[in-house]
């Protein structure tokens, strides 16, 4: 079983999962905040924010990667700040891969959560407010539980996207085995070798299995949550 793939392929698999999990979990709070703002608040520049969030979806991934590189690279404005102030370097690190994956997956996460928020009847939230819950508490005790299935859907969608993300990642943090070589990078590399199809196919199977497992898990959780809400 272990022999079925070369060790560096397994390394890529492990790294991909690590990168995707971090990408998704770290961007979740911001994702919920942005989704909430877009769903419920009116503020100047709302459409600009909305567009900005969608941008990574619209742009070819290479462009996004290039923009990330010029911003978060060691020479980039933000990258330099991060390094000087916090000692954080993302360029050519797995953290950079996670950043790229997070950015690319962000639109999907936000859209899914936003739709879920829009489906919550504001009158239920009003009821909570009259019972003494401040807006933050209303969110924590009413809105959040009610949108949980949507959040989970958004999470898994984002996770799947993060697992498959390639263009922006390789452009931003390149492909360093063990550090930034994710599963898609590995697949891509192999595909470029004449006759590499067989190994590529194996890697594709691994990618599918992982994503499906995540998917099934999320469906299960999501259904359990929904049942708790709907049921007896």
């Amino acid at each position: 079983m272990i022999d079925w793939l070369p060790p560096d392929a397994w390394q890529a698999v492990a790294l991909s999962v690590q990168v995707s999990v971090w990408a998704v979990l770290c961007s979740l709070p911001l994702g919920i905040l942005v989704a909430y703002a877009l769903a419920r608040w009116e503020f100047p520049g709302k459409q600009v924010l909305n567009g900005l969030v969608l941008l990574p979806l619209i742009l070819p991934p290479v462009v996004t990667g290039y923009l990330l590189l010029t911003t978060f690279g060691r020479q980039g404005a933000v990258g330099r700040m991060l390094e000087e102030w916090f000692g954080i370097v993302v360029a050519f690190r797995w953290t950079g891969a996670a950043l790229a994956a997070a950015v690319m997956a962000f639109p999907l996460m936000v859209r899914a959560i936003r739709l879920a928020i829009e489906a919550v009847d504001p009158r239920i939230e009003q009821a909570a407010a009259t019972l003494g819950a401040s807006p933050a508490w209303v969110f924590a005790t009413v809105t959040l539980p009610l949108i949980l299935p949507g959040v989970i859907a958004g999470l898994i969608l984002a996770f799947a996207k993060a697992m498959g993300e390639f263009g922006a990642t390789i452009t931003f943090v390149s492909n360093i085995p063990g550090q930034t070589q994710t599963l898609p990078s590995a697949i891509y590399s192999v595909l470029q070798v004449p006759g590499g199809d067989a190994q590529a196919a194996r890697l594709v199977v691994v990618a599918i299995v992982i994503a499906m497992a995540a998917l099934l898990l999320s469906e299960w959780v999501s259904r359990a949550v929904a049942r708790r809400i709907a049921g007896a």
Partner: protein
Amino acid sequence: MLRVALTHRQGDFELDVSFDAAPGVTVLFGRSGSGKTTIVNAVAGLLRPDRGRITVGDTVLLDTDRGLRVPPHRRRLGYIFQDGRLFAHLTVRQNLIYGAWFAGLGRSPRALPHVLEMLGIGPLLARRPAGLSGGERQRVAIGRALLAQPRLILADEPLSALDDARKAEVLPYLERLRDEVQVPILYVSHAPAEVARIATTVVALEGGRVTGIGTAAQVLGDPDVAPLGIRSAGAVIAATLRRHHADGLSELDAGGIALFVPRIAMAPGTSVRLRIAAHDVILARDRPTGLSALNILPGTITAIRQGQGPGAMVRLSTPAGVVLARITARSAQALDLAPGTTAHAIIKSVAIAPDDVG
């Protein structure tokens, strides 16, 4: 005490009301679409009226002129909504203690067992709202608001989904809240019996305007106002509970006259209110005998007003207070009734429903 002054426009509908409510229960009384829910929502802070000022006691909840508006969650209200609005993702128990928790009463507020029993929802605690019947849902909604220990209760037709037996059980609790805890209550209702029983102040509404305001006795006793038609008219009499009899009757003292009503669960000496619907009163010139009716109030007629229909509304001044009698014009003539003549009001003990005393 609640003071409300509001003007607001929504669609074709224009609200322009202003009323002060004495401590106790203020009932908004009016037909469908007259603006009751709109007013309650403004008090709760769920609706931003175009202009207005709302105060509870010394606390200003809203003053548009001064740009002041307390957010809903700081108003410490218990709002019982017309449509329940339970939290679908929480169990009945969690729904119930939701407000209590924010009021700092913890996860087991002291009033919980009591409220559970009163509302008959003890067995439902572990369920979720989706598995409740319509009436069960509304009872949970009532419990949730009560348990929040609010300083003002808003109730928008809270009882309309309950059957009579439940209504009779829940009403006394609201009354106790009114009398003991001194929580002001703003109450929307269609039912005159409910209104008479519970109201300290009645605000009659029609098309977004106040058409009458006063005590239940005044508004329900004024056939001109009676926003829900003549059947809602009736006298409200103040009495003191004198003693309980072995045969299940309680004896009241109303201005020195003994009135018998089905046993009421209060201690002798308590003051109670008695609604006597005008259409439940029979009049006789001479004191009748040999009747099953136990309550006979002698008095003097102060006014007779002939309505458009076959009825006449007779005001009788008795030692117990003013009593309204709605009789047929034909009887009024036959008995030769006129202002100044003496007459006796006959009232059955059992015609006074438990709803009507309290």
